[in-house]
């Protein structure tokens, strides 16, 4: 005895559905960061001068380098999807490896940047930090919090892209079935997008 197969089954492949799910998830990510952006705005409004002064300590060169790195990585992800659509697996994989390498470069940069600040005592708990104005401390705290949370997303994004690579190699992602690849790319663009806002807020506004 069989069973009745419903006309629209949840067990069928549904690319639109998967993408819809990813977009909805991106909304929640934006709202998650939204809470922090809100707090940033409030405290920037309250401690305008102090935010301005402490922001001078930010390394614009490193920040700008990281911005370029992330934007480039968004490009390579997008290109890898195009390559996939054209059935050029090897190129797609190569571009994904480049993306992950760029993610790594971003994190290394970040590491040196944080290291530098921490070395100078611009970190919670250090003596220098304790003598700062409240607004200045707040700026640094938000800087660590927001770029830290963003860094976590970079790592997660890179892991997702690594899974995409594995799936391409195993033949699970193909020319006709690349939604997972696209979703990974979407997530990566979100990581990039958030940085595009973090960069001016912490580095450029003096």
């Amino acid at each position, binding site marked *: 005895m069989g069973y009745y197969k419903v006309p629209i089954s949840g067990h069928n492949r549904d690319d639109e559905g998967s993408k819809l799910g990813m977009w909805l998830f991106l909304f*929640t990510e934006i709202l998650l960061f939204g809470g922090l952006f809100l707090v940033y705005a409030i405290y920037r409004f309250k401690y305008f001068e102090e935010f301005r002064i402490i922001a001078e300590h930010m390394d614009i060169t490193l920040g700008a380098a990281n911005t370029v790195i992330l934007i480039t990585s968004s490009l390579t992800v997008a290109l890898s999807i195009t390559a996939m659509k054209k059935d050029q697996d090897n190129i797609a994989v190569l571009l994904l490896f480049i993306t992950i390498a760029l993610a790594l470069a971003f994190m290394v940069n970040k590491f040196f940047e944080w290291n530098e600040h921490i070395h100078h005592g611009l970190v919670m708990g250090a003596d220098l930090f304790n003598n700062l104005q409240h607004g200045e401390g707040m700026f640094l705290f938000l800087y660590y919090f927001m770029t830290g949370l963003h860094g976590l997303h970079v790592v997660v994004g890179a892991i997702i892209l690594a899974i995409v690579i594995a799936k391409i190699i195993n033949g699970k992602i193909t020319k006709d079935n690349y939604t997972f690849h696209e979703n990974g790319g979407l997530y990566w663009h979100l990581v990039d997008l958030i940085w595009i806002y973090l960069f001016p807020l912490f580095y450029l506004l003096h």
Partner: protein
Amino acid sequence: MDSHAIDSNLNFYEAKRGLFSWIFTLDHKRIALLYLYSISLFFLVGVALGFLMRLELFSPGGQVMDPRTYNQVFTFHGVIMIFLVIIPSIPAVFGNFFLPIMIGTDDVALPRLNLFSWWLYIIGALMALGTLMFGNGPADTGWTFYAPYSVTSDTNVSMLLLAAFVLGFSSILTGLNFIVTIHRLRAPQMPWFKMPLFAWGLYATAWIQLLATPIVGITLLMVVMERTFGIGLFDPALGGDPVLYQHLFWIYSHPVVYVMILPAMGIVSEVIPTSAQRTIFGYKAIALSSMAIAFLGYFVWGHHMFTSGMSDEARVVFSFITFLVAIPTAIKVFNWIATLYKGSIYITPNLLWSTAFIFNFLIGGLTGLINGALAADVHVHDTTYIVAHFHYTMFGGTIFVFLGALHYWFPKIWGRMYNQKLAYWALGFTFVGFNILYGAMLTVGVKGMPRRYYDYLPQFEFLNKVATVGSWILILGILLMIYNLIRSARKGEIAPRNPWNGVTLEWQVPSPPPLHNFDRPFILSENGPYDFSLLEKINEVEQKPLDH
């Protein structure tokens, strides 16, 4: 697909066996039951804590615990009831079980995500329980985690906050799954406005889960950071802003009360047409009022903060919008009553749970209008009046519907009938005990008894004694109900497909359903989901079963 060569004579319990076939299942029905059993467990823990609090308040002065323990107990009670019970309750249990069936499909859109949500729920629950063992005792801040006390308390607040964060994530993923499911998997003959109203309730709810929960997630994380680094985000002693915390907290936590109530209203909109054997009055109004409530719900959070320090303009606006929410709510109530009016009503425990809900929610809603009014709220703020108000809405509202839904869908889920007589008695005790308990708390609150105190002035003694006795009757009713349901699930009479003569799709599948839900093509009406002229055709199936 190959794995589908499954006999539809087997129901979803029999299709697979073993512990792993449960805890790693992708079947929406099994995931629903996993949620049901875990949520019920925590509900009983929460009830036990409530019982202890009422025992403490039986007489003035310390009775069974010291003040610090009392604070920890109401905090744990609140956190369990909110994050582990009521937020997941109806969507995760009945939404998971019935949404796919009611829209005519065989699973949710993202089954693996669904399982992942349950695991997140368990991880979050274990973290919450972990605060009992690790650190300096469980939190004593109240479930609202108000700063600055949540920053300075020496109890294990951080871990509880992280638990709430994880639980929020679980809730988001459930909502996301339902939105995709409703968009993508409705049966071809089922356009939006032919969906059962329960699906509409879940849909509106899902959007709130999705768009409000991240904010509280990040806010709770901020408190953890504040506790770790002492930076002065919310703690005024360090230059922070405690009112900012309240804003961020209630931006989520008001909308979330609609996560609690909208699915319940959806279920009532199912039970009432079935009981009255006629189509629902004002289908579109009920469907759209859910969306209206979800939308308006984002703009009223300030009514929790009338006494916290806000400009008069803000307070008046928040108060006004709060009143607006009453309109879509009343639309639903009037439509339910109009559906029952002159219907051929079959009185069952299901219907009585729903009417008990309407009664309780009427009190909850009307007392809510009093809180929403600026001048009145200043007097009742932080009294047991508020505690009674939210128990009337959450417990008398949502949990009553949850328990009612357990009766309504009981035959479908377990394939057996429950003992109706015992069910009436259980409902009677629960309803009477409930109203004695919270009626007394409502009254003593108006007289000025503050909430969250383990002691009180002598003049409040009588009403507190009444409340505590009420809690005993209430708990007796709940235990009786649980006894009845567990016994019936094992020994009850075998249930037919359609014991209540409903017409939505879940009554067209076997009880309990087979793994893939449907064993034959389903019947949908052109005239929407509650077309009772189809009843005869639907019930024909049972009389000449194909497979047995």
